[in-house]
């Protein structure tokens, strides 16, 4: 079974043309910018650029279902935060009067909540939040789809990141599909014994989770033991690790890094001086 965000061999410019370090820097800049900005007017170009790069990298469209899936999973905190944006003083850039124009609002005279509901401003905030999330996921797909984890690991080693941290990244990535297949296997094995979770009784739900939880814990413990042994016999932890690749950047890599890091610095300044990216 494959991981959702798995590297696939390819011959595109994004696969072959840039050093993994450059791609890491670019991805990091995008994550910071997406965290910094909330204004959809700035986030949307990043998202569109992400989509264009994903198209160039030939990333399958189904990967983007993850955005919908993750948004669906986080609907509750999203809705809660959205309806809490109804007060005019929350908006620094948008016209407070326009932003607080209510679509559906109520006054809550306790717990300091005051005004809750949907306003033009809260919808604008919601659009920014969705766009921020979609941007990070899209660029993550581009990065992970075009960069082998072994290249990422080697770059981290070359950057003198402690081997134990690099190995955790590597091993987590490697064992996600393996563990996922084991979970599926356990679930299927129990389904064949008539197991199901179809009940509204919470005590039964708890009891019925044991047929999955117990074998999973046992298998996980076995795998952890075997992986520990396998890493020890391969000399892991014996000292300095030799990175297998150099951190030698091409002119193009350097230009891309300068462009993105420069852009990030400019974004910080613009935000501090002119509130660019805020709403």
């Amino acid at each position, binding site marked *: 079974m494959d991981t959702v965000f798995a590297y696939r061999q390819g011959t595109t410019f994004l696969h072959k043309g840039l050093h993994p370090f450059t791609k890491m820097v670019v991805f990091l800049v995008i994550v910071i910018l997406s965290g910094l900005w909330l204004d959809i007017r700035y986030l949307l170009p990043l998202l569109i650029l992400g989509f264009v790069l994903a198209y160039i990298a030939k990333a399958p469209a189904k990967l983007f279902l993850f955005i919908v899936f993750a948004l669906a999973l986080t609907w509750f905190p999203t809705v809660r935060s959205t309806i809490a944006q109804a007060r005019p003083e929350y908006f620094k850039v948008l016209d407070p009067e326009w932003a607080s124009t209510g679509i559906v609002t109520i006054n809550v005279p306790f717990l300091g909540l005051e005004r809750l509901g949907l306003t033009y401003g809260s919808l604008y905030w919601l659009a920014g939040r969705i766009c921020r999330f979609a941007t990070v996921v899209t660029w993550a797909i581009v990065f992970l789809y075009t960069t082998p984890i072994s290249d990422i690991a080697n770059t981290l080693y070359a950057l003198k990141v402690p081997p134990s941290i690099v190995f955790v990244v590597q091993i987590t990535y490697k064992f996600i599909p393996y563990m996922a297949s084991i979970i599926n296997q356990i679930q299927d094995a129990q389904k*064949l014994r008539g197991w199901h979770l179809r009940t509204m009784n919470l005590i039964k739900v708890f009891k019925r989770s044991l047929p999955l939880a117990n*074998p999973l814990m046992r298998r996980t413990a076995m795998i952890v033991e075997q992986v520990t042994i396998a890493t020890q016999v391969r000399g892991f932890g014996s000292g300095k690790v030799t990175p297998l690749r150099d951190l030698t950047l091409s002119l193009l890599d350097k230009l891309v890094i300068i462009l993105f890091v420069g852009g990030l610095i400019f974004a910080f300044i613009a935000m501090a001086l002119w509130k660019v990216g805020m709403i």
Partner: protein
Amino acid sequence: MKSIEAKEFSFRYLHQSEEEKALSNLSFEVEEASVVGIIGRAGAGKSTLVKSLNGLVPKVDLGYQEGDMIVDGLNTRQYDVNQLARHVGIVLQNPEVQIFSLTVRDDVAFGPANLGLPREEIYQRVAEAISAAELEHLVDRNPNDISGGEQQCLAIAGILAMQPKIMAFDEPVSMLDPLGKQRVMNILKQVTRRSGTTSITTESGADIEAVAEVVDRIIAIDQGKLLIDGDPATVLQDDRIQQIGVGRPQVTELFLQLRKRGIEFERIPITLSDAEKLISNKLRQLGVKRLMRPPDFQLQKVNHFGPPIVEVENVHHFYNPQVHALKGVSFDIPEGQIVGIIGQNGSGKTTLARHLVGLLKPTNKDSVLKVKGIDIKKLRLDKIIRMINYVFQNPDDQLFAETIWDEIAFAPRMLDLPEEEVKRLTEEAMKVFDLEPYKGRYIFGLDEDLKTYLSISCILPLRPDVLLIDEPTTGLDEQGEVKMMQSLRNLRDQMGKTIVIITHNMKTVGNHCDRVLVMSKGNLILDGTPREVFANEEKLLEADILPPQITRLGQVLSKEFGCPKDILTIEEMVEVLDYSIKNSRNGA
């Protein structure tokens, strides 16, 4: 020079008492550049012994050690595991947990890079190890995309690149298909011969023939104690080997049985090639021109099976547009038949089994999947599992309850049956594999054979008419395998079940199945009785399958002596040789 010295070495895990040590007072020495097989039933202490060679026992798997283990001149007490890793490499049973990187090349480099070697030396070692493990064509591939045999070769290459003086293999071929086993064992042999490395390999019985081909010494252990130590031919002839359930290569057993019939050879062989040479010489000496079955030899007990209980027609399955896992598979299984499904790893066996129990649906609309005449594609899983059910290979995937009784009672309880009915069905299921004496036993720490019996028993209360069992004999010694297959036969004979097993064990198929389906790359390429299937050498090679050793002996003897190519059992070969030799002596 001594490569390994065990000096009154004992070990017990933290949970074990003084009386139940995992290893007890072992003393032996291993010469440099030798290949030693450590044999013994599951739980005899083989893996613990392997782990003691590089200090994993007691430093990672904690416990109490007495005596000393000296490897490559170093006392394991005085060094850490990762220091000993430069001297002793270990290859585990499951290749998947030993592979960490995303390309074959990077994975081989993982060990030398951890040792902090200069990059040029790493590249050189990687190239040498990849060449020794015959993985040149796979260097840039993702290890997840290569076969199980290739993954195990990769694990070996990863250890080779660290250039240890000693390599230990813990049942390295038990999870592989027959050609994968052969490939791994050949590499083990070549590496030892070429680099002068000392190799230790463990085996519980199912692959004793593969091990016998490569070792020059065998140490048999039982309950943590050294039982026999000597050259392979002597050890494998010893009756104690049979008693501890490991079993002998089929050719060794054949020659011992021929001896009982008064047919003596200059020695008892342990490998196929030696057996062929000895028999050919003998036959030439005696002037035997042709090997044939006695006229009164009954080829096969005629079984009468019922109407088709499973009907499969034109089943396709795509996991994604690139992976066409089943390519129009069609067959019927009549009621009461014992069917073996064989094929290399990734051939589509498990995908097929998952379709038969409704865990997967065909991706084409014009397929037929019927059990007892009912289209199961449209049926809910809780209905299907009462007609046909599937036991996965690893019992640890399903066992969760406290006791054996609770585990078996789980399925009828999930059906919300009255407690009286649950009790009745549970008791009935326990009787099939004689589990009543163990009904209060805790699941944790059960022996491998009990776990396998239990995992099958767990679905019996659902009363399925067809049982699909994935690798029912894995982890069992020879006696355990025979007992398991006899129990399955009883299920068929006494309860009318139809049995389908998925296996890599060709002896099991040859001895116990009525019919064999051979899968290769998503296609059903052979379908027939074991005799018909195993006689088709060309097609079997296409599926990376090697017939049982005794069948292969018949096939090599067929070239000069016209021996039947479809011999399935040792007893049959004894009859053929005995009859043909006596016949020639009588001047016929």
